[in-house]
């Protein structure tokens, strides 16, 4: 269905190719997962399938990309629109019309389908993706999961035989992600659509894939194979695979279900062992306390009577579905956004009443788009500005950054940093003023596993140094890794607040893979299991 023949892609302003000598054969009706670090050329590979690269982005493409026999060199994206449907990373950025139904029809209108066929297909698509109830809703008012499904439906209604998706679940809560993946699987199974999908959250998708393509980046050869064999040695792997490697399971399980079947002996081995927990300073000094905190957007209450307390040295995860009020809560804690009711006190000071300079000494927030905070043209300049704003010793911020990310160079333009590096840079800029409370909004969105591990280590160190940290996230694995406490919000109210193991273990939605595999034992991460296995009372470590 899709053939890459010795494809090399070079962008106009770069000397080295993004992708070099790629050879791929993707048969019809397969769900293919494209995996790779940020900036490795995944998106370029996906965009080459419908000719956006190079028709739209510029650059040169050597070799040949054949899609159902059509050469993308001679067919512009619009001429492939009947064959390939592309769902962009941020669905909202690709919406052309204003209501769900019109959006579904737009592609078919462009293709010139007869009105009666369009009518029928819109109805079919509404049913297939469960959008019938919201058919007349304005697109702006939809939740993240609904938007993603509309974006998929919008390309699907035109009956393309290939569907290309760039990180379809990265912005979604676990429930919404399940919804989208279930819809995709149905397309593959029932309609024989070929799906090509890039995704960082392997734990969510690898079990559905028929094939995995690894794009290592830096011009290294692309690897294609079945998920089980590729995952055996892949540099990045979901927790289920890491646990499998640790226990030496063969064949490698990819789903929680398969892993549970293989895990009997591992569970026996771990009986009586206790997970090692991060040592939390028991100072119990309050950093922030809210009481009856409420925020409304117009008539819509975003937060209602929220009472939370966070202590020094504690890492708290805020979870809940898209639109539950997590970002609103973080914003209220730094005193931005709509006027609130109730009290917020950070070290006995109200953030909303603080002057601009005092605010950064009290609380720091890394927003969902960290790049918003960047303004200079080089890393060094950015650090100098932060020193000045925080009124601290020149060089403080740069030294901090050197500690967290030694590979970042002074002269680099912040735009040229990878997503993870940019996040760490912004974190340093915020930390320059040493705020006792540090907030992060969706820090791992779009981050690959190595970067996530690094961030987890940095945050643990900061907590050990006494910072109170609160992060809003959908990433259950990250939460299992670093959070001491989890607060779950729903409809603007706190519905659960307790230690990580208590809260996530009892919820099928928020439980990490390791916990699902080894329940009823209370393990959360591969690290904990590894530590326990290394310190078993008996010498024989045989988990086969």
């Amino acid at each position, binding site marked *: 269905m899709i053939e890459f023949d010795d494809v090399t892609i070079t962008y106009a302003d770069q000397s080295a190719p993004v992708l070099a000598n790629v050879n791929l054969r993707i048969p019809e009706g397969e769900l293919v997962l494209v995996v790779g670090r940020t900036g490795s050329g995944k998106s370029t590979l996906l965009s080459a399938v419908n000719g*956006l690269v190079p028709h739209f982005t510029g650059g040169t493409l050597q070799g040949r990309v054949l899609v159902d026999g059509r050469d993308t060199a001679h067919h512009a994206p619009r*001429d492939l629109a009947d064959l390939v449907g592309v769902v962009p990373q941020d669905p909202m950025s690709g919406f052309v019309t204003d209501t769900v139904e019109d959006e579904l029809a737009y592609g078919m*209108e462009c293709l010139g389908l007869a009105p009666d066929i*369009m009518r029928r297909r819109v109805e079919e698509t509404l049913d297939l993706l469960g959008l019938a109830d919201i058919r007349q*809703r*304005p697109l702006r008012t939809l939740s993240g999961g609904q938007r993603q499904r509309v974006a998929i439906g919008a390309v699907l209604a035109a009956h393309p035989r290939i569907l290309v998706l760039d990180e379809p679940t990265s912005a979604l809560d676990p429930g919404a992600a399940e919804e989208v993946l279930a819809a995709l699987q149905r397309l593959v199974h029932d309609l024989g659509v070929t799906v090509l999908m890039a995704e960082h959250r392997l734990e969510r998708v690898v079990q559905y894939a028929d094939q995995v393509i690894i794009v290592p980046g830096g011009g290294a050869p692309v690897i294609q194979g079945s998920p089980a064999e590729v995952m055996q040695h892949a540099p990045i792997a979901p927790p289920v695979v890491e646990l499998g490697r640790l226990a030496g399971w063969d064949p490698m399980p990819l789903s929680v279900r398969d892993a549970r079947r293989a895990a009997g002996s591992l569970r026996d081995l771990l009986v009586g062992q206790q997970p090692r927990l991060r040592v939390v300073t028991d100072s119990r000094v309050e950093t922030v306390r809210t009481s009856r905190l409420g925020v409304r957007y117009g008539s819509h209450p975003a937060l209602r009577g929220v009472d939370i307390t966070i202590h020094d040295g504690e890492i708290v995860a805020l979870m809940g579905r898209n639109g539950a009020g997590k970002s609103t809560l973080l*914003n209220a804690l*730094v005193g931005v956004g709509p006027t609130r009711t109730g009290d917020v006190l950070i070290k006995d000071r109200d953030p909303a009443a603080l002057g601009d*300079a005092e605010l950064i000494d009290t609380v720091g927030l890394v927003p969902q788009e960290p790049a918003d905070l960047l303004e200079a043209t080089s890393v060094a300049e950015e650090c100098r500005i932060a020193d000045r704003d925080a009124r601290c010793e020149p060089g403080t911020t740069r030294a901090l950054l050197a500690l967290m990310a030694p590979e970042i160079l002074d002269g680099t333009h912040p735009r040229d940093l990878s997503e993870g590096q940019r996040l760490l840079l912004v974190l340093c800029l915020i930390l320059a003023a040493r705020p006792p409370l540090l907030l992060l909004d969706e820090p791992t969105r779009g981050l690959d596993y190595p970067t996530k591990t690094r961030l987890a280590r940095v945050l643990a160190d900061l907590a050990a140094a006494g910072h109170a940290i609160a992060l809003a996230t959908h990433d259950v694995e990250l939460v299992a890794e670093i959070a001491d406490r989890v607060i779950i919000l729903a409809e603007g109210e706190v519905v659960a607040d307790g230690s990580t193991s208590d809260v996530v273990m009892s919820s099928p939605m928020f439980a990490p893979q390791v916990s699902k595999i080894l329940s009823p034992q209370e393990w959360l991460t591969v690290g904990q299991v590894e530590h326990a296995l290394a310190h078993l009372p008996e010498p024989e470590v045989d988990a086969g």
Partner: protein
Amino acid sequence: MGDARWLHPGAWWIWALGMAAAASRTTNPLLLIALIAVAALVVQARRPDAPWGRSFRFFLQLGLIVIVVRMAVQVLLVSSVGTTTILDLPGITLPEWLAGIRIGGDVRLESLLMGFYDGLRLATILICIGAANSLASPTRLLKSVPAGLYELGVSIVVALTFTPQLVADVERLKTARRLRGRRTTGPRAIAAAAIPVLEGALERSVTLAAAMDSRGYGRRGPESARRRRGTTGLLLLGLVAACIGTYGLVSAGSPALMGLPLLVLGLGSAVGAVVWSGRSQVRTRYRPDPWSLPEWLVSAAGVTVAGIFTVAAWSGTSGMVASFDPPTWPSLPLAALVGVAIAATAAVTAPPLPRSMRMQRELVEVGA
């Protein structure tokens, strides 16, 4: 009444332009205020819950500014009329060759009224256009645009998504500045935000264009290059002819043939080119808005009010022109009042909107 659905945007525009045409025929403040009230009533009843639906308030404010500016100009810069002095300001005597213009001087009631009536008329016209703006969905109007002009329409789509997101971006960057401990108000803060905001907006426009392209926008059927050149040439010639024709029509002393005939010929060939090039587009329409009874009723209401006002003004019905010298309380011509009442029926004859698009109190999207 009928089922809940969208009224054809064309019908709203005909209705609103009819109201504007009616407003242009009178200076009677009572009639003008009645027209504004009708516009506000209909907008209140039938505007959708969408960014453009909220634009009416902006037009009301604009109308107010127009009135104030018009009155200020009349009173401070234009030679006064009338005799009733209500305020004596110091004035500058300008040289004789600037007769008709003055600066300052005494403020007279008649002058003030003349400025007010004229400003109110202009404001009413603007508010009627504003009503169409907030009642008719621009994207739905775009669907009714002939295929040949579609390319033009697409730039409007991009522009339409551009503005609300620009506002959201400015908010985000203001927050970002606060997070770095900077001032969030003042000219420097705005200047610092300008470049990243525009950068982001531009990037998004490119993404949108790429998305439209990959969904097949702009696909053409088989069409020869010669034919494409032909239609472009025809369009260009037609527009040039129309321009010359318009000039001939308004300028005295040009040959008769250069006027109306050339204008008609030019417009005709331009329309022909648009229709012809539209033939090669493969595009079809999904559920186009129907044009049925409500559309006829609403547009008829607009045409009727325009007709009544025009006839009344033409036949010199008393009360169509409000007297400001001497200042008397304007009378209300019955015929015009009936016209205004007919225009108001649009609030009822237009079908209600689908429930999900009805205006609720502000429903702002809530972050994760």
